[in-house]
């Protein structure tokens, strides 16, 4: 691993923007394109929002950890919570599925992460928490 950073912050919705900005600042070290930065910001936003809404159900004192690792041009992002966990990961990943339709959620969170990152893995245990592990190769279209 060449470089990494880890941040822990409370599950306040205002920190969605903070997590996006922190990820973009770390990823900037890999000279990403504007589109790549936009993809990373969107994917992180989805993962952090899921932790706030679904893992913690708006328990504002709970903590979320954001970790970014760079190895060469490969960026790995882990968003981790210690919330309720996901009982059925396949169902949660399904486009348009939402466990909280009353919140007017689109059910597209994981679909967006999958579209904007090279890979998305979910590790979750009910009652213990969830880690969303995403990877993306930066600068695949080489920029000079």
């Amino acid at each position, binding site marked *: 691993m060449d470089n990494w950073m880890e941040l822990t912050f409370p599950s306040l*919705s*205002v920190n*969605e*923007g903070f997590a*996006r900005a922190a990820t973009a600042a770390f990823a900037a070290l890999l000279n990403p394109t504007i*589109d790549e930065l*936009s*993809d990373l*910001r*969107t994917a992180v*936003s*989805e993962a952090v*929002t899921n932790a*706030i*809404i679904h893992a913690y159900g708006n328990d504002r004192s709970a903590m979320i950890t954001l970790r970014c690792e760079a190895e060469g041009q490969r960026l790995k992002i882990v968003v981790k919570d210690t919330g309720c966990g996901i009982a059925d990961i396949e169902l949660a990943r399904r*486009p348009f599925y939402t466990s909280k339709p009353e*919140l*007017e*959620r*689109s*059910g*597209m*969170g994981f*679909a*967006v992460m999958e*579209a904007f990152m090279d890979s998305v893995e979910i590790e979750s245990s009910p009652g213990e928490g969830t880690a969303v592990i995403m990877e993306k190769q930066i600068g695949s279209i080489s920029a000079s």
Partner: protein
Amino acid sequence: MEINASKRGPRLHVKLAGELDHHSAEQTRNMLDTLLKDITVRDLTLDLSGVSFMDSAGLGVILGRYRILSMRGGHLTVTGMSGAIDRIFRMSGIYAIVDRQ
């Protein structure tokens, strides 16, 4: 989120400026729904040219307003999408029900 609205007959034009995520979604939803309480509004155009960031929370806000308008026989049009927002719209299939300008 900043909102600028203008109305002409049954047409409401709303320009949004800011970041549309879960954090700003509730406020944005409330402001739009206050405008849509005017039942003479049939067509809502959302100008997103000032929206610098949007994720799936924004999709939820737009789909919810689409439902309100379609129940009264109205339409929702989106305009001014950045490349990133257009990509989220395309992957969600929202253009099947919401017009783009």
